[in-house]
């Protein structure tokens, strides 16, 4: 059943790609056709994804591989392939579903934009590339789609191209992720060199299969870390996270789709995909490369959560929250909870898309205002947005029971607690949970509660085309938890291939109470801290953040993103720019100067030669000439003009020759 989908996996990314190409060739005015094409492409992709999802349910550990030759160079062939396993299938469905919601939302959100058609072309292009990424069975093919989603991200961040800040953010995103990609590229080359193939699974010969892994030896750690560089760049992990908050310059649906739900999670997906590389020679599930992953993840999770507390832009807060959540997933992968990490990825995809779309709805309702201090009291004005946003907020904060994020976060904490190497990540993550609840509460209070401020005066609820996706995503967020609970961890079993049974008693675990307590603590602290946010409180002016009032130093540190961007500006970027100027200078003056110096030496030599000529040789020539003239004058006497004299001379000459000949003979 459904076998044709397995042989035609390429159709899944091809549908949105084709839609994108057709839309690009349409004229600007054909908005309706563009939307129709984009949505048809996405629906097709979703349908195919679900069709592809079906067979993976039938057998545990299902894996369908379809390899093909890309090209032959010399006597060797480069092969690529597509792969369908539970990881890919789950990702496919999530991406296509979230994508579809965001497409629909965009119809309303972008309704007034003059480059409407181009937007949908880019969006479809991204969707295709992302779908291709998850079903790639070759690190090279994955890299190709990886770069293409990067391109789509670049184009979409800079979509409002007349805004200089958007263009700068796009450039920053492109370059920052490319730094990581270069590591990925090198890791890929190294892997190719060691294992001789880039196919993940190739009936026993793939690089992720035991035979291939055995060939790696000690270099596995380095390969894994280099590939992880790519993940760091793409998933906004410290120290390459700086691009992600700036990427919020793009339209909000883009932030939702690319910079929250799907593309940024590709780094996590990549690590999960090549997990066998990370766990080569693992002792107790710990390897040097995984340890690095854990600590990068922990650093990112905490740092981003802290920064999020002091941001004013509704989208930036969510962006830092995304960075933080991605850090959390990395930790999960690092400590060995691959399934937990992916589950969180999927859940995060839904609720973060929901949050971003909610934020988009808020921004739309507030006529483009993004500063949370200027909002307030939107609860009554935008009820649907408020309700759905609240669901997303609870899921993100990690409230269990009926919110998917809670279950997956709990599972991650569980896995982290069991990490044999250190308990520190576990406790740091617990702190992160509190912080997450705190900054989300702050945001909720600022945006939806309290009195209305400047931006919310003319606010209105968004049209149905925008609220519908919110509702769908909210429902997904809630109902997704059905397959996540510890009583029936179906998704866990699906991903790991372990058998699963229902056991209600497992629902209640110590970890549940720990996380519930922490989340409550976070929410309570948040409510207490920000209860008077946005209004005059004693001698604190209304527009000053309570934390800023209480701890101006700390707040400034966090509000300025821990000075990391500035640090980069003054070190890495300044240094590179200096290197560039130096190279140019060297070229213009040193190397060219060297050449000119040689030229000058030649010229000097020329001058020297000329003077020798003038004084020495020329003088000699003059003398000779004078002598010759004298001689000539002498000789001209013999030229009598008398023909007979000449002839006589000839005769004498002949005579002389004759005599000479005779004498010689």
């Amino acid at each position, binding site marked *: 059943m459904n076998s044709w989908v397995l042989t035609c996996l390429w159709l899944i990314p091809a549908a949105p790609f084709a839609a994108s190409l057709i839309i690009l060739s349409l004229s600007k005015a054909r908005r309706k056709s563009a939307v129709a094409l984009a949505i048809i492409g996405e629906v097709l992709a979703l349908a195919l994804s679900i069709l592809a999802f079906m067979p993976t349910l039938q057998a545990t550990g299902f894996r369908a591989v379809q390899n093909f030759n890309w090209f032959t160079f010399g006597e060797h062939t480069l092969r690529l392939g597509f792969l369908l396993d539970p990881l890919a299938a789950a990702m496919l469905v999530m991406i296509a579903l979230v994508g579809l919601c965001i497409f629909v939302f965009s119809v309303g959100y972008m309704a007034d934009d003059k480059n409407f058609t181009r937007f949908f072309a880019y969006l479809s292009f991204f969707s295709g590339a992302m779908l291709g990424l998850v079903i790639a069975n070759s690190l090279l093919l994955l890299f190709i789609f990886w770069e293409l989603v990067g391109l789509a991200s670049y184009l979409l961040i800079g979509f409002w191209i007349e805004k200089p800040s958007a263009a700068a953010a796009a450039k920053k995103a492109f370059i920052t992720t490319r730094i990581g990609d270069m590591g990925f590229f090198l890791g890929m080359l190294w892997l190719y060199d060691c294992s001789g193939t880039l196919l993940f699974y190739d009936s026993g010969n793939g690089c992720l299969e035991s035979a291939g892994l055995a060939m790696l030896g000690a270099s596995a750690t380095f390969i894994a870390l280099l590939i992880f560089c790519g993940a760091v760049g793409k998933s906004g992990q410290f120290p390459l996270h700086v691009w992600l908050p700036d990427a919020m310059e793009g339209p909000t649906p883009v932030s939702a789709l690319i910079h929250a739900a799907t593309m940024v999670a590709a780094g996590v997906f990549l690590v999960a995909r090549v997990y066998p590389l990370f766990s080569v020679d693992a002792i107790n599930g710990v390897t040097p490369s995984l340890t690095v992953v854990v600590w990068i993840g922990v650093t990112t999770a905490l740092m981003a959560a802290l920064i999020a507390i002091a941001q004013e832009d509704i989208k930036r807060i969510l962006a830092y929250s995304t960075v933080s959540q991605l850090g959390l997933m990395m930790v999960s992968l690092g400590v060995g909870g691959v399934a937990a990490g992916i589950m969180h990825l999927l859940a995060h995809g839904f609720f973060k898309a929901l949050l971003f779309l909610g934020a988009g709805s808020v921004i739309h309702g507030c006529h483009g205002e993004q500063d949370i201090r200027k909002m307030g009291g939107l609860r009554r004005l935008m009820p649907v947005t408020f309700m759905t946003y609240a669901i997303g907020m609870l899921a993100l904060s990690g409230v269990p029971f009926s919110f998917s994020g809670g279950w997956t976060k709990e599972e991650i904490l569980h896995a982290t607690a069991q990490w044999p190497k250190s308990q520190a990540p576990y406790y740091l993550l617990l702190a992160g949970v509190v912080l997450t609840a705190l900054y989300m509460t702050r945001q909720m209070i600022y945006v939806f509660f309290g009195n209305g401020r400047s931006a919310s005066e003319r606010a209105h609820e968004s049209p149905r085309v925008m609220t519908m996706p919110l509702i769908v995503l909210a429902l997904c967020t809630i109902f997704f938890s059905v397959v996540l609970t510890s009583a029936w961890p179906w998704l866990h079993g699906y991903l790991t291939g372990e058998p699963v049974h229902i056991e209600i008693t497992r629902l209640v675990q110590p970890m549940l109470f720990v996380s519930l307590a922490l989340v409550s603590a976070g929410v309570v602290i948040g409510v207490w801290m920000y209860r008077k946010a946005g209004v005059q409180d004693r001698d604190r002016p209304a527009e000053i953040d309570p934390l800023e009032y209480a701890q101006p130093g700390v707040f400034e540190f966090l509000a300025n993103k821990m000075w990391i961007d500035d640090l980069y500006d003054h070190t890495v970027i300044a240094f590179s720019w200096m290197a560039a*100027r130096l190279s140019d200078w060297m070229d213009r003056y040193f*190397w060219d100067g060297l050449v000119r110096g040689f030229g000058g030496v030649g010229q000097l030599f020329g001058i020297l030669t000329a003077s020798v000529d003038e004084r020495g040789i020329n003088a000699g020539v003059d003398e000779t000439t004078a002598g010759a003239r004298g001689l000539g004058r002498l000789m001209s006497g013999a030229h009598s003009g008398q023909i007979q004299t000449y002839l006589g001379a000839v005769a004498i000459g002949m005579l002389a020759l004759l005599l000479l000949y005779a004498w010689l003979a």
Partner: protein
Amino acid sequence: MVGLITAIIFVPLVGALAVCAWPQGGGRPIALMFNVISAVCALALWRNFDATAAGLQFVERHPWIPAVGAEYLVGIDGLSLLLVLLTSLIIPFALLAQPVAGSSRAFYATMLVMQSALYGTFTAQNFVLWFLFYEMSLIPAFLLIKIWGGENRDRAATKFFLYTFLGSVAMLLSFLGIYFAKGTFDFAALAGLGKNGLLTGKLAWLAFAGIFVGLAVKVPLFPFHTWLPDAYQSAPTGVSMVLTGVLSKMGVYGFVRLLLPLFPNQIKILGPWLLAVAICSIVFPPLAAWAQRDLKRMIAYLSINHLGYCMLALFAIAASPVVAAGIDTHAALSGVFMQIFNHGVTAATLFYFVGLLEQRRGVRGIDDFGGLMQRTPLLCGWMSVAMFSSLGLPGLNGFIGEFLIFKGSFALAAAFTAIAVIGLLVTAIVFARAMQSLFSGPLPESCSAFPDLVRREKLVIVPMTLLMFAIGIAPQFLFNIFNTTVTQMARLFA
């Protein structure tokens, strides 16, 4: 019976005469017509080329000056065919790129002479003949820069000429040395001798140095590259296209055909140093490109960088201690060939775009423009494709060559290749900066009357861009041309 290769060499020469003989005007149609003929010849070569056969094909051999071992010996293998096709592809577009107003019949005639010389260079298999064509391409290039160039053209042309000419002299002397020692100018024969050390002692090093310098100037390799930005900057658009698209390939071609087969031992000994030089060519020029204001100069520097990758792969192959030719040698060589072709297509297109911008605005400083995306979306879109191709985005042609080069070089010289990745990164920075300042931001007053692409311009851009996509997605048709040659050469270099 005139062979196809002879035909393709002489058709442009006849064309040059025809352009000169034609009364007033009409230089371009005639030149294009002859380009169509030569393109047909090139396609016939491609069609009749046996991709599975080793060795030279379509060989034509006539005695020329037997006393000095000079022969008229032409023939093609996969590499030569690839370059002949590239020449046939780039030159017509370069002719189309020249604005009609500023060109004369002499311009087209000179271009055609250069085309003939290029065909000759890529097909000659005897040093004397090869050198003749090699030099023959130099003079038209000099004239084209000197007469039809932009500002500073005198200086740039002289610099170009002196540099390349001195390089050629060094190479000629080296070859004379080889000839007196070995008595042959035949490439194949010399390559056969090279395997066991062509020359010994000091003479070998002198000859190596001479040929190396001659070719390094042409490629150009750091630090012999300073003529290039000036020359490309001053040359008119069409000439820049040919210079970067085809002429710069002569150096790489020379390395593959001459230096590597003739001096394997010398390269092995100097290996790390040569690799370091290649790395310098990869890392510093894009950094310098970053600091440029002039778009043409910027692309010129990136051109050095792209050919630096080729050099990296070639030196890695020649310097590696690996004995047998394996997948890495094949990958590196295929990558070099791909890169040669791709860089020709991409860089020529980029120069074309810069020419279009210059034509519209009169200047070409990177900050003279802004917000073009609002005014000319088509131009920006297609130009971005060329830029992404140049920075090696997968799905476009640049990636294939660079991936294979890096794949091969990494296995043969890992540390150097790892450093070379910086070049990829900086290239991305340069293009990202260019795109930001050209396409985005508010539209300045001076650019508000910009026309978007017109049909004549699309005639050049669309085929080139489609080719980029074709190579990027399904490159097999190009690989078919030179796979056998790669295998054969890999065996030779091993």
